[in-house]
């Protein structure tokens, strides 16, 4: 079996497992929908009080939220192992993968499918359907933005998770870094200037997860496409390097966190 077919087989098993407990699955999906609804209500309250921020109004934020929810949801449903990668490294769960012939990273990503992610995908699509007013070309751009954003998001979280190869306390920190990156990816891009913009495109690359893909949808241009795709590819290179370096260290017997 090739890497891709192994991935698909393992991921299908993970998805079937996540569906197995129907009541739990329903609770998780419903819980996520409520969570996303809260965030939308927060923004609705904000714009009721402040009307606009840097030219962005509620419909702009709704479109951003729709895209980011689908990115986050599809990542969790099809690459769910990314979510607790640092925890898996610190628990020594890599050992089993190292004895197998297929690449470790893809096996780690395929090991889990997060049930609540389907709630993200569903609410994201509903928000997009009501807020984006898309024609056929627009749908194509949204799909492209979601794929690019997913690559950027997965690369970012793999980089954060790889910190566990070096730091014992990285599980909590990598989660906080990922959660905060996701949160600021849902903020209007008009707020980013100066140091905030540098931070949003480097250490917490929320700019490449939400801002750049959504700019591609809002104002499509070759430049917007180059920024979004280039950013996602750059982050992927960094993630691959960090994971490979960490794995090489792990193979040599350095305990995670030592």
């Amino acid at each position: 079996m090739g890497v891709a077919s192994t991935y698909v087989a393992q991921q299908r098993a993970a998805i079937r497992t996540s569906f197995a407990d129907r009541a739990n699955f329903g609770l998780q999906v419903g819980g996520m929908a409520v969570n996303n609804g809260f965030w939308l209500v927060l923004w609705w309250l904000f714009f009721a009080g402040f009307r606009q921020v840097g030219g962005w109004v509620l419909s702009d934020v709704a479109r951003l939220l729709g895209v980011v929810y689908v990115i986050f949801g599809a990542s969790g449903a099809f690459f769910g192992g990314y979510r607790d990668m640092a925890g898996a490294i610190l628990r020594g769960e890599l050992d089993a993968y190292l004895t197998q012939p297929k690449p470790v990273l893809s096996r780690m990503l395929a090991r889990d499918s997060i049930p609540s992610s389907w709630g993200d995908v569903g609410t994201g699509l509903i928000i997009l359907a009501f807020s984006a007013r898309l024609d056929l070309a627009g749908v194509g751009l949204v799909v492209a933005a979601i794929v690019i954003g997913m690559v950027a998001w997965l690369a970012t979280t793999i980089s954060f998770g790889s910190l566990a190869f070096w730091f014992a306390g990285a599980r909590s920190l990598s989660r906080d870094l990922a959660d905060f990156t996701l949160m600021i990816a849902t903020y209007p891009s008009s707020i980013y200037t100066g140091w905030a913009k540098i931070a949003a495109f480097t250490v917490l690359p929320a700019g490449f997860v939400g801002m750049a893909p959504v700019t591609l949808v809002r104002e499509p241009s070759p430049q917007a496409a180059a920024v979004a795709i280039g950013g996602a590819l750059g982050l992927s290179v960094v993630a691959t390097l960090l994971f490979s370096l960490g794995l090489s260290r792990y193979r040599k017997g350095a305990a995670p966190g030592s």
Partner: protein
Amino acid sequence: MRSSPPSGANLLGTTRAALAAYRVGLASSLAAWPVLLGRAIFYGVCLTVLTAFWDKVGAARLAGTLATRLPPGGLGVYIGVTEWITLSVTPIQLRLEDDIRSGALEPHLLRPKPYLAQTIATEAGNMTARLGMIALGALLILTVSGRVWPSPLALAFVGVLGVIGGFIGILLYCLVGLSAFWLRKVLPPLLIMQKLMFLLGGLFAPISLYPPALRALAEASPFAAHLGFAGLQIIAPSASAFCFALALQAFWILALSGLIALAWRAGLKRTLQGVV
């Protein structure tokens, strides 16, 4: 772990065990000082982004909007306080989820020391190290940012309410973690809890800007006791508001402890019946 709360006779032993666990948590966090330092840097980056947002909102000062009610110096220091508490609270829910779902809880049930009290105490120790490190970072950032310093009294109020608020955060996340007795993953309740912290805790915007009904709801919730009251002392420091906040924090510590005890008993019953 006992399935019932400790009786008066062994309360002293439980307290000793909790104190020892607290020291272990504190020492282990301090030993991992590079991660603490990374967290303080992360705090600085968070502040950079979030203050950029509120500075943009405040700069517009649109007539007829809430922007005119923002404090003259903006919300930078307010956000600094709420994020200080938020980033200091440790993810106790992850440990509980792991132990409950993996079956690692069962060996603890055979031991004479209370698992839950020790877990909470360990996380409180971890949180203490984070609170100290991030507070140092916050004061450094405040110094170099050129923003107006709060009065010493306001800082003292914030310090007390922030530390107690952090402990309330641990209790809230503990409830989330105990949901693992019923749910395979605690992510959905965690995210809902986080959103309630944004909405009712004042993490998104100060609750003093809310309409009266929503403000009353927020103040009556544990989320304001966790975050909002400490932040409000930056906007409008007052001794009476401080005392009111302390009383509510004491109430919520008792109420949440009771809820945790109930959830623990119910969850443990499920575990012992082999349902989990």
